[in-house]
């Protein structure tokens, strides 16, 4: 690997690699993410290579172990290009058949195809599958084309050319202008204009000229894993965005702040940094343009609040991750008191495509106030869970029913929770809402970082509100009282309600407390903490009332308000529930209907799941 000293060197390398990695060549791309499907997905590519070697095809067919390709429900996904034949749930045992049938004989392996549940038809090509058909995979689509451990793969698809363009053909001001014109808004949740944020940092004075740029990869929202998949699947796209940002702002040092729960992302980023350094894309005098830049990796230590920028900075300085009041904003006084710009992983990943294709390309997608595409993790009670990238402005209904394939087991949709613990629950009546920063805020939810958790009729909304408060109660850093005490008290009230001790006055107290916490907390953790309670109370008040007045949990979730009982008429005395019960609460013998002792029952539902005759009832 030779060092790239000029932009011409990079362009030459790109041309060479692009020729070698011609899009018309035959490629088998497999998601090889540990934790994809079940275990073993990373074992598929070596077995495929072995099978190709046996047939002497290893030179003609390339096997790429890619990062996440999004369709996690059916993972690991294997795509055979150039035809784009898509196989689902591929196991190492399937490798021989794929090579023999598809590669050698050009036939499709029927049993590995995706079957449309609506029509029962087997779909061969990636573009036919509804999950992919309605997406616009501008950012995330690259994952499927490259090996995340190979900088050459990234350069082959045009990587680092945007950096070269910015460094040689644009002034920092022009870069900022382009980003501003594109209408890109922060993908971390708050949705502030990225270009404006950069401008503040550009204009801020630093006495010794030191400025910092930071990638916020502290993806703490439960139910969201887009940042992880981007960092693991395409680390160079984030690095390139960061470098362009550093050039625009005038920073010489960058940090990648990654959540400690993502060890693989950290590993891949180290590899990516080493490769970029070897090619001379990091360090002194990058591409001969006089631009110096270095990046360091910092692992978080497991605190949700560190996603907040001032708390993130505090922990980068090895202090306790407590937020502080603003101003001064990080753009004026950030890391070690120097002007600092922090953006989310997805925001940085959007930069290179914007510079490469121009602001017009980006702002041609989306709505009036929200431009471009957004990556969501569509999870929970949904058929096709996974990561989806859609243009802004698409309706929730389209996302859930067309892309997501609706609710499993014919259950009824109840709500979709957006924006993590700071967001809110959107009910069915608002499903035609389009995805847009401002429309979502008006509905009481927020874009957040893109978590989208679908809930069906078996999800209790009071329990969900309690779940989020329990989460935030632990994650509140404790610095300011409204957040520390307010959330604890709201959680106590909700616990009372879910355990049958609630009163109607509690609802008023909750509203009042929510108001106080929202308006008087120091940072946005407290400022948005009441959202799950407020939205569930706004859209699902009847459930709260059922818990309080009737002591019933309509979704049969709240343990204190449900009872399991065996219907003696239906019970076949098979002993399945007896075996399944972890609390030894079921008694019975052969040919005698079983009985559940409510005193011993821990209400885990194991008997309910185990019974094949629907004899266990939930009351």
């Amino acid at each position, binding site marked *: 690997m030779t060092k790239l000293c000029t932009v011409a060197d990079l362009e030459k390398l790109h041309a060479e690699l692009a020729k070698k990695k011609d899009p018309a060549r035959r490629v088998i791309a497999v998601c090889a993410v*540990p*934790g994809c499907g*079940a*275990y073993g997905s990373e074992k598929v590519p070596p077995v495929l290579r072995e099978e190709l070697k046996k047939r002497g095809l290893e030179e003609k067919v390339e096997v790429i172990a890619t990062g996440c390709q999004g369709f*996690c429900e059916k*993972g690991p996904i294997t795509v055979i290009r150039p035809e784009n034949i898509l196989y689902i749930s591929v196991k190492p045992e399937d490798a021989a058949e794929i090579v023999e049938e598809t590669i050698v004989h050009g036939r499709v392996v029927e049993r590995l195809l995706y079957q449309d549940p609506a029509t029962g038809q087997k779909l061969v090509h990636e573009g036919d599958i509804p999950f992919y058909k309605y997406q616009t995979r501008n950012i995330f689509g690259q994952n499927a084309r490259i090996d995340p451990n190979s900088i050459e793969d990234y350069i082959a698809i045009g990587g680092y050319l945007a950096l070269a363009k910015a460094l040689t053909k644009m002034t920092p001001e022009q870069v900022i202008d382009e980003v501003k014109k594109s209408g890109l808004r922060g993908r971390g949740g708050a949705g502030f204009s990225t270009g404006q944020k950069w401008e503040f940092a550009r204009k801020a004075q630093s006495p010794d000229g030191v400025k910092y740029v930071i990638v916020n990869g502290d*993806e703490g*929202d*439960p*139910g*969201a*894993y887009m940042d*992880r998949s981007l960092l693991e699947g395409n680390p160079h796209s984030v690095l390139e965005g960061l470098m362009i940002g550093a050039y625009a702002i005038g920073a010489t040092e960058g940090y990648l702040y990654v959540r400690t*729960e993502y*060890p693989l992302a950290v590993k891949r980023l180290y590899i990516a940094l080493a490769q970029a350094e070897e090619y001379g894309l990091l360090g002194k005098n990058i591409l001969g343009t006089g631009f110096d830049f270095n990046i360091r990796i*910092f*692992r*978080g*230590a*497991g*605190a*949700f609040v560190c996603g907040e920028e001032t708390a993130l900075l505090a922990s*980068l*300085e*090895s*202090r*306790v991750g407590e937020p*502080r*009041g603003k*101003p*001064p904003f990080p753009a004026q006084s950030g890391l*070690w008191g120097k002007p600092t710009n922090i953006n989310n992983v997805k925001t940085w990943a959007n930069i290179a495509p914007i510079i490469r294709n121009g602001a017009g390309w980006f702002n041609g997608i989306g709505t009036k106030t929200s431009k471009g595409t957004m990556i969501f993790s569509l*999870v*929970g*009670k949904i058929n096709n*869970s*996974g990561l989806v990238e859609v243009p802004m402005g698409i309706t929730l209904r389209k996302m859930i029913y067309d892309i997501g394939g609706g609710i499993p087991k014919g259950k009824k949709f109840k709500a979709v929770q957006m924006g*993590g613990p700071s967001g809110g629950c959107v009910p069915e009546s608002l499903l035609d809402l389009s995805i847009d920063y401002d429309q979502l805020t008006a509905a009481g939810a927020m874009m957040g970082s893109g*978590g989208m*958790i679908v*809930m069906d009729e078996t999800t209790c909304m009071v329990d*969900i509100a309690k779940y989020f408060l329990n*989460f935030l109660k632990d*994650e509140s850093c*404790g*610095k300011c009282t409204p957040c*520390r*005490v307010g959330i604890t*008290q709201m959680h106590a009230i909700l616990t009372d309600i879910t355990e049958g001790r609630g009163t109607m006055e509690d609802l008023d107290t909750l509203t009042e407390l929510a108001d106080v916490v929202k308006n008087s907390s120091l940072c946005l953790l407290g400022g948005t903490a009441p959202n799950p309670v407020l939205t569930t109370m706004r859209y699902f008040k009847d459930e709260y009332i059922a818990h309080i007045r009737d002591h019933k949990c309509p979704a049969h979730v709240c343990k204190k308000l449900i009872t399991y009982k065996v219907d003696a008429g239906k019970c076949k005395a098979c002993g399945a529930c007896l*075996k*399944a019960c*972890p609390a*030894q609460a079921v*008694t019975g013998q052969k040919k005698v209907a079983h009985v559940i002792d409510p005193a*011993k029952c821990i209400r*885990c*539902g*194991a008997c309910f*799941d*185990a019974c094949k005759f629907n004899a266990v009832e939930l009351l």
Partner: protein
Amino acid sequence: MAAADIPDGVKKKKKVGAVAVIGGGIGGMETAISLAESGYRVYLVEKNPSIGGTMSQLDKTFPTNDCAMCTLAPKLVGTSRQKNIRLLTNAELVEVEGAPGNFKIKVLEKPRYVDVDKCTGCGVCMESCPVRNTPQIPEPAPFSSKMDPEKRKAYERILGRYPDKKGALLPILQDLNAEYHYLPEDGLRYVSEVLAIPLAKVFHVATFFTAFSLKPRGRHTIKVCLGTACHVRGSPKVLDAMSKKLGIAPGETTPDGEVTLETVNCLGACALGPTVMVDEEYHPMTVGKIDQLLKKYGWANVEKADAPETADAPGKAETTGTAATKTTKEAPAQ
């Protein structure tokens, strides 16, 4: 007598300049630190010879039952180390004039009979005073001198990875935690000494982040994901059952030191949910699959799971009870 020097030329409308905080209790200190961090010059006036206020006399505070000193100590240290704060102890406010944005205050600093500016802290006066001749406490020997040399060498190796001491505390603690699966107390003391960071601050960081543990953990960890996606797909049930099978509550370690059961807020494997992570391996889990998982790792007999007859139940419950009491209790993970 010392007067807070607000620049005279400041117009009344413009709210800039120094801020005086009256009272050095927990509220006063927090206010002073926040203001100082925002770039204000702060004068913290306290009537008593030392700051800390009522909270320094309390054991726990309402309503969260947090340890009072744990909250207070970092603030005490923070106040004295913050360069933007001028501490005026043993002093009282006598006069306030002006309007919001431009106050002038008079503070009476009570005499100490020592010129604070000239005093070098040598302690000679204390030694020679015939009335209260309390000998000066000798500087304690550095902690590292009393340490087991083997251990010290091990810690030195970790600290050696960070030649730049600025901002190194968190990475060092992460490395310590990765090496020992918890943060040993002598390690923390040693780190505090080498980095010249007060021990209170080191503990503040060590207890704040969930990645750290002050109690030894098992050789392996089972993490049950309680993220939203896993929650709606039934992870609380998995946690309950796992906890029953292992006979330990979340946050506890089996008596043989083999497994620690933990909860995690999201593993980022939401499409598989409910997800369980054993060390670094992901497993999609249901209540029914737990036995299989434990068998795979050879942990099936931590407590026998499949009791066929109900007659066994009381005995079983007892075993669970003793197992639970033997375990090392950690800060609750919930």
